[in-house]
């Protein structure tokens, strides 16, 4: 999907939007499940629980997409044929931002940034929608992501203020002078 035609005519079609939305949510679920598993294995249970919860939240979005349109009916795309600005989809937290010392506050900030990227993606899709039906769906999806931002903020508000990563590791992996 390219948001703009050669003559700068908006051309995000309904099928393109649904395919991208489904892929975006599916990759978000996969990444949150990976992160939850990794944190669980490395005894960071609080963060693992948060990422697992996010996987479930995004999973409900996947279900919503599939109830809107069976993915099998959408044009088949290879994983690299989606129109993301970055190599990965907007809602997948990049692995290079992750640390075993991540705190719950840090995890929530990363998730919130991912949700905001998703908001921006759907807002742009709405702006360049080819028709009113597509625009309405894109705006609804953008609002769903805004709701997620609010939800995560509410969770953060229940925690004390804190850094993104734990300060000192009493048993660091490598002791370099």
């Amino acid at each position, binding site marked *: 999907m390219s948001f703009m035609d050669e003559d700068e005519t908006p051309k995000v079609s309904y099928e393109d939007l649904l395919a991208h939305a489904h892929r975006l949510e599916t990759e978000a679920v996969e990444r949150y499940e990976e992160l939850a*598993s*990794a944190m669980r*294995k490395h005894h960071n249970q609080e963060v693992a629980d948060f990422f697992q919860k996010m996987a479930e939240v995004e999973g409900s979005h996947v279900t919503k997409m599939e109830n809107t349109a069976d993915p099998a009916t959408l044009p088949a795309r290879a994983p690299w044929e989606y129109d993301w600005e970055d*190599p990965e989809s907007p809602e997948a937290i990049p*692995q290079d931002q992750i640390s075993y010392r991540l705190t719950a506050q840090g995890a929530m900030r990363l998730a919130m940034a991912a949700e905001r990227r998703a908001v921006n993606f759907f807002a742009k899709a709405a702006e360049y929608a080819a028709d009113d039906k597509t625009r309405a769906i894109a705006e609804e999806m953008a609002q769903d992501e805004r709701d997620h931002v609010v939800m995560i903020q509410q969770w953060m508000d229940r925690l004390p203020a804190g850094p993104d990563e734990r300060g000192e590791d009493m048993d660091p992996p*490598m002791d*370099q002078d």
Partner: protein
Amino acid sequence: MRYPVTSNPLKPRQYKSDVEPIWCPGCGHFAVLSALTRAWSTMKLDAEQAVMISGIGCSSRLPAYAISYGFHGVHGRALPVAIGIKLARPDLCVVGIGGDGDGYSIGGNHFIHGCRRNVDMTYIVMDNEVYGMTKGQASPTSPEDWHSKLQPGGTWVPPFRPISIALASGANFVARGFSGDPNGLAKIIIEGINHPGFSFIEVLSPCITYRPDQRGWKGKVHPTSLHTVEDAVTALQMMANDDGMTTGIFYKGHRTAFGCKPDGSPIFLKPTKDISEIEAELRP
């Protein structure tokens, strides 16, 4: 497509096993596993048609995290086993898995001759320029000036250049990917698997625990501006000034794979003699 498609295609997550990876949070290898499963899903590959063979190291734990057949062997010795499996079962999609220490140091000899022999398989090396599992020693691809506790001040030797070695040794497909772009890597893996002969794919896959500086790789990795060539000498010349951070498919050759006819069909389908006949021939 050289491998039969399954009538029951799996989603990428379904190719993953129930074994939870022990990789550190943030490890690049998670994305390599995702890229491989996305590749297989796109190919609609039957999981029972695939086999992964690994050596020792963090990257070599990957076979346990997929539902395909897998063999977790000894340090540096993935390729001999992989080659044997492919020759015995040419119908299988054989993928060798390893890291830079496993593949380029103790496994270096097998790497050179694996490329030279050109058996129809794919070898994926996850390069993080460190021995991660043993807590941070310099590997063959560590930069010359990388300070470690074991080698203070650096290794004092230039790093190994696997792309050039693979080209010079006769690999039929040579490419590099990045764990920060799993979808692009999936595409490279599919092309490597589908290309006949020995396909070598180096994957830049950061170790965020023992090489935290590699978090900066995302800002350095870039697609190659060069086109894929079909002449190994030309590819070698192109890679002479490579900065080690380019991704893409550099070379696709036309060598006939070992044990195959020019059309790609295997020569050694079934044994032509019973083992007792062969033993009788060898007796004095």
